[in-house]
């Protein structure tokens, strides 16, 4: 009995190759860099990862439903510029509210185009990437924005403060991850998202309002971007028009590292969290080891592929792919 339990456990662990990869990295960096494993550094990395992480949670939902969202990067720029700019004009509370509404509108637009009109999500969100970048520049006139009173505002809580002794970004990241994980795994809504991603036609034949489900995933994604913008704006206390440039691919990398398939229908939020943390720890670890930036890029190349390879190899039970 106990033996079979153990075997089962072994089987489960073996199938979670990404966890093993994650553990290997942590150990590896800890061996080579003394400062890496300090609590200070570990929390610092998780805190830094919160921005990408929060966005990746939203994007995971979109990807599970079988679509892509490449607009999150420029949407982050837009949201951060907006919330920082409005902060001094109408106060932190209203600023966040207005920004969230604006971002949700963009999410609705994405959702309408992909969900209702059934347009190709890659091109739609690429188009939105460009359009939102333009909107941001038009909004700010191309200027950087800053918060004048950095010390006095309670807006500082989200990026710099602590909740119950834990850095606020980490708390927000964790809470969001847990909530979304539960939503995806244990609610009817989550089940519908998986169904739509797994087989859109069959989901319609099962009485699922496919358009609405897809629409909602983009709203969730946009909301997550809004949260990330609050963290980012508060952390930096300022913003520039291209802060989020390139984030779309980083976010997607985190999602895929977590094992979510781009084809839709599979993946979990918690694994995305792990994927994002791996990215964060690689970046941080390489920085601490003092590699030049281009060496960091090279190593990241190798490490990303190794991590995902380990994951897929564990799932299929053999190292090399069987295709001829």
């Amino acid at each position, binding site marked *: 009995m106990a033996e079979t339990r153990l075997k089962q456990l072994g089987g489960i662990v073996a199938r979670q190759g990404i966890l093993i990869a994650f553990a290997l990295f942590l150990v590896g960096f800890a061996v080579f860099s003394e400062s890496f494993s300090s609590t200070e550094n570990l929390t610092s990395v998780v805190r830094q990862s919160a921005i990408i992480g929060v966005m990746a949670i939203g994007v995971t939902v979109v990807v599970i439903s079988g679509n892509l969202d*490449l607009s999150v990067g420029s949407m982050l720029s837009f949201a951060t510029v907006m919330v920082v700019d409005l902060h001094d004009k109408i106060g932190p509370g209203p600023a966040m509210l207005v920004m969230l509404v604006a971002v949700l509108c963009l999410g609705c637009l994405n959702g309408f*185009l992909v969900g209702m*009109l*059934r*347009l*190709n999500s*890659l*091109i*739609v969100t*690429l*188009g*939105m*990437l*460009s*359009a*939102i*970048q*333009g*909107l941001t*520049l*038009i909004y700010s006139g*191309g200027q950087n924005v800053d918060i004048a009173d950095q010390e006095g505002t309670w807006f500082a809580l989200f990026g710099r403060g602590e909740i119950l002794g834990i850095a606020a970004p980490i708390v927000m990241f964790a809470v969001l991850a847990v909530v979304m994980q539960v939503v995806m795994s244990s609610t009817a809504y989550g089940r519908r998202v998986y169904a739509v991603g797994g087989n*859109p*036609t069959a989901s*319609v*034949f099962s009485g699922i309002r*496919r358009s609405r489900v897809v629409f909602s995933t983009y709203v969730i994604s946009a909301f997550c971007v809004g949260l990330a913008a609050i963290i980012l704006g508060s952390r930096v206390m300022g913003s520039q028009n291209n802060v989020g440039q390139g984030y779309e*691919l980083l976010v*997607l*990398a985190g999602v*895929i*590292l977590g094992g979510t*398939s*781009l*084809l839709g229908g599979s993946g979990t939020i918690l694994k995305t969290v792990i994927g994002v943390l791996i990215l964060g720890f690689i970046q941080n670890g390489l920085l601490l080891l003092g590699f030049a*930036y*281009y*060496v*960091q*890029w*090279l190593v*990241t*190349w*190798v490490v*990303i*592929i190794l991590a*995902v*390879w380990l994951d*897929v*190899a564990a799932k*299929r039970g053999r190292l*090399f*792919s069987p*295709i*001829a």
Partner: protein
Amino acid sequence: MERLKSNRAGKWLVQNPIWGFIVIIFVFFSLSNEYFFDMRNFQNILVQTSTIGLIALGMTLVMINGNIDLSVGAVVALAASLMVDIQSWEAFSGWGNWQMLPALLAALAAGTALGALNGIIVWKTGVDAFIVTLGAMLGVRGLVFIYTEEQSFFAMNFTFSDIGMSSVGPVPSLAVLFLIATVAVHILLSRTVHGRNTYAVGGNREAAVNAGIRVGPHMVVNFMIVGFFAALAGVTLSSQMGASTPNLGREYELWVITAVVLGGTKLTGGAGSIIGTFGGVLAIGILRNGMNLMQVPAFYVLVILGSILIAVLFLDKQLTRKGAEALKT
């Protein structure tokens, strides 16, 4: 709409809606801007699109295979750096203009080799091409910076940039090269065994495996082709500039993919054509050129470009719509 579908030209248009869109913007820019409708401007457009265009040719194959290559932008930079740097090596100083040859070979070989590397990793590890090439996008850029030590290179020999600016008869050489490559890849895809297998591998991988197509090596070849074209694009781009910079080609992958998908290639693989891709490339080129000439402010260019991408998809949807009888799923 029904009448449109019934005649041959109409049917063709429904299959390649991008060309309808090209006609629209072409007429629009011709009417609204005095500089647009001009032979020299058309040549400019062809030359300007040739970079994205060359890469898009290879990308079409890879995407019909059901894969993707995000590392093309970095390969452009690598090939450009090799091309410009190697031709000024001491060793070849006595070769006259032939000093460009080893540089060209090195650049193309590097691109092809990196393509092969991507392909082999995708094949052997079974890791999604998206993640493999996303890694390579970063890593190859790292190689570029290591090789160039962060420097831009400049071709002492102006012949190099003169080639980039030269013309064959009335048509710029780069445009000619691009057109020839387009025809060649079109023939490859539509007439050869490899090309037809490309559709099979992307359309139904299991069927392809069962039919005995060696899917792995097949994909590697297509990755090599896209690597080759990305390198070729790097060479032509550097010859337009007579120089190279390590940051060359950033975000090209996104534009290339946009062009290919606009041209009707499916992300999931199995469908697509070079004629469509050519249309997609041209559409983006005309839009950019037209907006430059019309002096649309930079911020608005982004908004317009984004909106138009989406509009094209919408148009496509309208053209291919099945009508009231269709299944509502």
